């Protein structure tokens, strides 16, 4: 009995494996379909971010399912928030599903891992919310629709210096997070330049992802008495940090980056995060373009019970739309032609703003949204425009 059961299960295993190998190849080689790969972390540590981006891409696909008279088919691959898995997922999309272009992934390090594969296979890819400069650097096939860490750092430095009138700033960074470290560095550079004071950054504290207690860092900061605290990092840790800062009696404004804009930030932080200020990509109450208004309307139709629209969803939408625009201009689904068209994208009207792709493959954006937490909601505060 036991033996025959085990034999049966072995057979089932073999059957599923052969089904897996043959199943997906049947739908290929249909010239009426243009395949677009989406690789996102849909399981693992970054799953929530990947899910939000995918929603944006899928929404855009629903609204614009056709280009050049052909149907656009999304092929979604999960990369498990893991680098090795990200490379195999990207290789799979290219080799097995024969996609014409790739969108994704949430998280700069996952995008970077796939960079070499899209480059050597000459398949264009668009990063949606990966803000690390290294993603597109030295890679002619990787583009992006969001702004970069240096820009975001500059925006917040400008906000702190000009709007808040800060002279002394303390920085708390999540040292194991590339995003946080990069942002802190660019903020420091920009702020010292603006204020002309080399010692304007009075203290820098480091914490690790998952830390719960920040009293040590905060006590040091309190002693230096800064005008502003800049604390880019993960939303849970940042919310706890703000709570503990307020409990210690630190009353100065605390500002951060786009990762704060999640509902968890407010649920964890409660009343203490009131007044926290962050830069972000998109504001749904005040869309900058016509395309943005369409996006907001369609999003609300699809998800009527959601409070606010995450910026990464808007970026997912923009990535897909920019790709469709490029395919339209290229006049074919040939990856090389799409790449060349993407590289010459100028004044494309996306939901998050007007996009022009520069020589690096990055979107040249010159303004960012600044939001503040007010009455438990992310509220539009300002649009900061930087002239380079």
């Amino acid at each position: 009995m036991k033996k025959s059961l085990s034999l049966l299960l072995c057979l089932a295993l073999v059957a599923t494996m052969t089904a897996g190998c043959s199943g997906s190849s049947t739908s290929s080689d249909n010239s009426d379909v243009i395949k677009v790969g989406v690789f996102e972390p849909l399981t693992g540590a970054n799953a929530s971010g990947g899910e939000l981006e995918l929603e944006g891409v899928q929404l855009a696909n629903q609204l614009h399912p056709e280009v050049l008279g052909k149907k656009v088919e999304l092929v979604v691959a999960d990369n498990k928030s893991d680098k090795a898995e990200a490379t195999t997922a990207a290789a799979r999309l290219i080799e097995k599903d024969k996609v014409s272009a790739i969108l994704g992934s949430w998280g700069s390090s996952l995008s970077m891992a796939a960079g070499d594969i899209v480059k050597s296979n000459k398949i264009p890819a668009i990063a949606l919310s990966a803000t690390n400069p290294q993603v597109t650097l030295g890679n002619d096939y990787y583009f992006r629709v969001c702004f970069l860490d240096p820009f975001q750092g500059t925006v917040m430095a400008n906000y702190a210096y000009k709007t808040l009138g800060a002279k002394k700033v303390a920085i708390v960074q999540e040292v194991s997070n590339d995003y946080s470290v990069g942002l802190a560095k660019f903020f420091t550079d920009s702020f010292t330049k603006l204020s002309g004071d080399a010692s304007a950054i009075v203290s820098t504290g480091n914490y690790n992802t998952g830390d719960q207690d920040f009293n040590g860092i905060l006590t040091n900061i309190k002693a230096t008495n800064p005008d502003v605290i800049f604390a880019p990092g993960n939303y849970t840790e940042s919310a706890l940090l703000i709570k503990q800062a307020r409990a210690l009696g630190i009353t100065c404004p605390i500002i951060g980056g786009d990762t704060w804009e999640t509902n968890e930030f407010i649920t964890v932080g409660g009343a203490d995060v009131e007044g926290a200020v962050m830069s972000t990509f998109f504001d749904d109450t005040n869309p900058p373009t016509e395309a943005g208004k369409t996006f907001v309307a369609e999003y609300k139709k699809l998800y009527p019970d959601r409070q606010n629209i995450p910026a990464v969803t808007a970026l997912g939408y923009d990535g897909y739309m920019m790709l469709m625009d490029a395919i339209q201009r290229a006049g074919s689904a040939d990856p090389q032609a799409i790449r060349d068209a993407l590289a010459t994208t100028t004044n494309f009207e996306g939901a998050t703003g007007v996009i022009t792709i520069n020589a690096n493959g990055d979107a040249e954006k010159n303004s960012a949204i600044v939001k503040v937490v007010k009455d438990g909601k992310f509220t539009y505060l300002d649009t900061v425009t930087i002239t380079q």
Partner: protein
Amino acid sequence: MKNTQNSLGAYLKKHWKTVVFLVLVLIGIGIADQFVNSFMRRLLNLSAIYTIVALSMNLVNGFTGQFSLGQAGFMAIGAYTVAIFTVPVGLRSTIFYLAPMAPLLANIQLPFVVALILGGFLSAGVAFLIGSPCLRLRGDYLAIATLGFSEIIRIIFTNTQTITNGALGIKSIPTINSLWWTFGIALIVIIACFLLINSSYGRAFKSVREDEIAAEAMGVSLFKTKMTAFLISAFFTGIGGGLYAALLGTVDPKQFYFTLTYNFLLIIVLGGMGSISGTIIASFVVTLGQEALRFLDEPMAFGLDLPIFRPGLRMVVFSFLLMVVVLFYRKGLMGTNELTWNFIINKYRSIKSRFTKKAASAQGGDSK
């Protein structure tokens, strides 16, 4: 002279099947290297690297019976050595844009092989430092120390901005594309492990695993034996880590969470603690199996739009299959057996006889 020729001839005569098999494997790799697409190539490369690391973990955990959980840390050392020393000097200033690379290292570029071997030696060196206090003790101290070590290494690499580029990681590592690097080194490691296990050292390893007191009474130095196994394991893991870095082209500290170690623990438990061939089989099954099950993540796998076919399902099914294997094969797929010719022939015979017996009894039942 004549004597050695004779013994070589005798050896070939005795092991001709193995020799033919090895030649076939080499030809197979050669053919695969020419014709396989880059997706399959990547999976095969990953399987070979997992084989190297899992095998070296099995050397300590399976054969010597010491519970070590430091694989991710040793891999990180190997991976970062390759990353730091093989990235072209010209690209370094763009990678280390937050803080420039330490001037001592900034202009040193080594060939891939040298960096790979250096990574192996560095990780063996660190293993010596951890092993010398811990391996003198009995019990779980090694597991605790190695687990702690792999976390410490990750945090050190996160904070040494000028050497490892901290959390940003290093990219633009020259990648390896051919199957020969990974499979060649995997073959070397497999053969080395096989020879080691069947030597007097290997017998000492196993005696320590079975009964430390009896082994000591027989004159086996516990500390030396454990240390040998631990150092060799760390060396091969470092090399595996270096290959991993060169395959992915980028490294960052988050890759080397302790969960990476559990991948290899899974492989050796699945394959059988103390079986070389089991580890090899399990490495390939786990790596290829996870990809093969990917169709479960896609909607409408069978023409029906079932809501359970969503990303993540394949991991559920995969875990279920693992549980089934563990239920029916308590000691892993191979236990402590090896996939030798005798093993295959015996298995074949037993299955055959069982079927003929069944057929005979069925016939007997009919006639009744």
